């Protein structure tokens, strides 16, 4: 099975659908290395986002995924790594 890819665009779409956006933040700006917290997303918003990624991509994300990967760049990489493990499994 070919591996699905999870992109920054996917992450932005899911963030907006699930939690919305803080008025003071431009998600289209350079956000790759900005902490989610600075982007206006607290624990609940991140739980909602994680749940949506799990549903849409059929992956299981561990409970500390956002603690271990606090920026969009790290999260996208972590989700893709998980997708890769599933594709090769």
């Amino acid at each position, binding site marked *: 099975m070919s591996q699905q890819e999870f992109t920054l665009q996917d992450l932005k779409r899911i963030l907006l659908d699930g939690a919305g956006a803080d008025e003071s933040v431009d998600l289209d700006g350079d956000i790759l290395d900005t902490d989610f917290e600075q982007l206006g997303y607290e624990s609940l918003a991140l*739980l909602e986002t994680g749940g949506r990624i799990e549903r849409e991509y059929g992956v299981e994300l561990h409970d500390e995924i956002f603690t271990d990967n606090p920026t969009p760049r790290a999260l996208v990489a972590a989700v893709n790594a998980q997708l890769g493990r599933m594709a090769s499994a």
Partner: protein
Amino acid sequence: MNRRAVITGVGVLAPGGTGVQNFWDLLTEGRTATRRITLFDAGSFRSRVAAEIDFDPAGHGLTPQEIQRMDRAAQFAVVGAREAIADSGLATVAFDPHRTGVSIGSGAGAVRRLDSEYRVVSDDGRLDLVDHAYASRHLYRQCVPSSFAVEVAWATGAEGPATVVSTGCTSGLDAVAHAADLIRDGTADVMITGATDAPISPITLASFDAIKATSTRNDEPRAASRPFDADRDGFVLGEGAAVFVLEELTGARDRGARIYAEIAGHATRSNGFHMTGLRPDGRELAEAITAALDEAHTSPEDVDYVSAHGSGTRQNDRHETAALKRGLGAHARRTPISSIKSMVGHSLGSVGSLEIAASVLAMRHHVVPPTANLHTPDPECDLDYVPITAREHRTDTVLTVASGFGGLQSAMVLSRPDGSAA
């Protein structure tokens, strides 16, 4: 004249056995009533443990009509109210219905009926426009839980002020606080008060699964609720009700009532911060504790026992430890503190009233219940949380606290009115 509100009757339905005696036996023996969920098939949920009541409404004297009309939580409230009235001896004297009110707390209302009725009228979610023809004629009373106060008023004959207090997980303290206020300001002489919740339903489980707030220790249900333990991983849902007869002190003494405790002070504060998040320093809960002690004209040093919120989430137990240190100062390290949620689970709004019941029983017997499952204390929860075993302890003044979604923090002080039997 300074009017004071005292508890003269107690009724309890709690996991592990209904009635006050079974409840107290469970607590003092340190047994846990948490188990795999049996009320429905919970196999697909992340958390599959809860503290359930083996409840037979007909066995408690409810008629078929009452059983059909009432959600499980309302049934608990009515049974609890009848037990409390019987315990108080009030039924044997002529009490004035106009001076008797009702204040019932509930966090989740009739959620079980809402869940099951929704499935019927929506054909399991297939219909966006629900089919009202399949709705129970009691659906309104499930949606608007003021019906709980209606049922308790009908069951007890109260015709004074009646209301439901629904402040989420602080409801069990706040409903009794509201009742005490009505007695103190002269609005009522007797209040039937307490709280009830029966939230163990698919929609409740799903919502707590989503925020990962509940324990996933599904293979060891009896050890799942572990407040203040290093290995805790969330709260365990519970259910139940505790209902009290609250009376004005003079009237209670005049009729020779047994007086369990006075509601000496209470306060609610909001953290004004986050709907579910807690500020680590515990400032608002500490402020609620200070305000409740002030109202009771009591100092931290007088507190003999603290009935903790102790939900068993990572966040709460540290927050609460910080708040107790802040609110009680050095005395926080000297007073025994425990969480009965380790044994009866967290029944959302009602558990605050169950904790009031545990507190007045601790005052009656001079025994404080333990925190079960507390084998390895979290180093950051470094107070005397009475692990595993109940303790004989002179208990005349109790502080009980609650913390809930919406950022609400409540504290109540229970004391022994001067001259009442120890």
